[in-house]
């Protein structure tokens, strides 16, 4: 059993599941109906992608593992998602900025991952790329609307950048399983995505009349290795509650 391959797939899956879960918290609380539907649709896309990855990981792990056992029965230290995706929704500005920063990264990642020498990973990425394209577009348009909007919306965007920028460094720090994945050809060297990512952020921020943060900001990391912020515990408590209270329950 190739543990590093499994870890790599779980990392990709966990990013999607946790962000999907976070976005779904907006369900019924969106600022306007159409955006409530938009953000939950994005959640659906992300959870669908997560399922594809979890199903693949489960087939590799064997031993009775399923997409459900991986999603609902692992604890915080076993989750390998980025710190960025577990940050609280706060207000709409934080939510759409978080989406923009993540989806731009995911777009570049999946673009490369289509060439993975692992057929299943390449197939999942090829499928997901089309959906992520809509996510990038939707979130970048919101960054521009709010950044170049009213005084209040701009203030909230500046606040959002302040809150989230420290979690973007982790995107381009290769975890051990990512380094292994890139070396073996089934994964991507994420450090190589940074330049293109920065350029896209810069272009959109410019149109949104938002300043780029200083390069000296200290970057938080650890999520990829299971060391999370305090938020993940609460997310899992809510997400896993039903399965843990009524083990094996089904719809």
């Amino acid at each position, binding site marked *: 059993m190739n543990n590093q391959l499994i870890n790599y797939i779980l990392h990709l899956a966990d990013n999607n599941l946790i962000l999907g879960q976070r976005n779904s918290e907006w369900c019924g609380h969106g600022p306007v109906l159409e955006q409530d*539907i938009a953000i939950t649709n994005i959640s*659906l*896309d992300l959870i669908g992608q997560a399922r594809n990855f979890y199903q693949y990981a489960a087939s590799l792990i064997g031993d009775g593992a399923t997409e459900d056992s991986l999603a609902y029965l692992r604890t915080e230290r076993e989750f390998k998602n980025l710190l960025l995706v577990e940050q609280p929704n706060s207000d709409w500005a934080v939510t759409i900025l978080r989406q923009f920063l993540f989806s731009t990264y995911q777009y570049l990642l999946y673009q490369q991952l289509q060439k993975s020498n692992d057929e299943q990973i*390449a*197939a999942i990425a090829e*499928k997901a790329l089309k959906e992520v394209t809509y996510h990038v577009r939707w979130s970048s348009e919101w960054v521009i609307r709010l950044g170049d909007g009213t005084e209040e919306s701009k203030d909230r965007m500046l606040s959002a950048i302040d809150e989230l920028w420290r979690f973007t460094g982790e995107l381009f720090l290769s975890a051990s399983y990512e380094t292994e994945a890139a070396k073996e050809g089934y994964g991507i060297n994420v450090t190589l995505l940074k330049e293109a990512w920065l350029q896209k952020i810069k272009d959109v921020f410019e149109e949104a009349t938002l300043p780029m943060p200083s390069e000296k900001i200290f970057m938080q990391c650890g999520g990829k290795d299971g060391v999370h912020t305090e938020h993940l515990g609460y997310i899992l408590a809510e997400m896993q509650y039903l399965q843990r209270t009524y083990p094996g329950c089904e719809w």
Partner: protein
Amino acid sequence: MNNTKDIKVNIQEEKDAIWKILEQVNDPEVPVLSVIDLGIIRGVDVKVSSTGEDLEGVVVAVTPTYSGCPATEVINMNIKMALLEYGYKNVQIKTVLSPAWTTEWMTEAGKEKLKAYGIAPPKPMQSVCTPDSFQEEEATQCPHCNSFHTKLISRFGSTACKALYQCEDCKEPFDYFKCH
């Protein structure tokens, strides 16, 4: 003398029959469309016994439209049930992710059925979404009054595959099946 040709399974005939049955399996969300119209059936395989006389199983290769589409499982189940009703045994669904499904695989008949149902079909020229913001796109035609004077309300609609539009002439809202 035994004419063994008569009792052997005619594989091509069976496959053709199965494809025909699949025309009756509909998308639960958009019931005017069959799975054939959607272009999600990627292949039909038939397993015969070593003597060639018994049909032992069927494998239908299906590709999902969107990663998170919740109708996928219902469709898979409906395909199985339809084939079981016609007496096929051991029906298996094989999920194929690559090549990724695209609206280009939707049949012309399917597109017309969508329009008649009140949903604007995906545009013929594959204007697939670019990641760039605020792009000018060719107008989407209103399925009710045929006007091109329409506006996008949200790129995310009632289901993963649809966007929400409003017609500026007849004022009706309508769903648009997004290019994918």
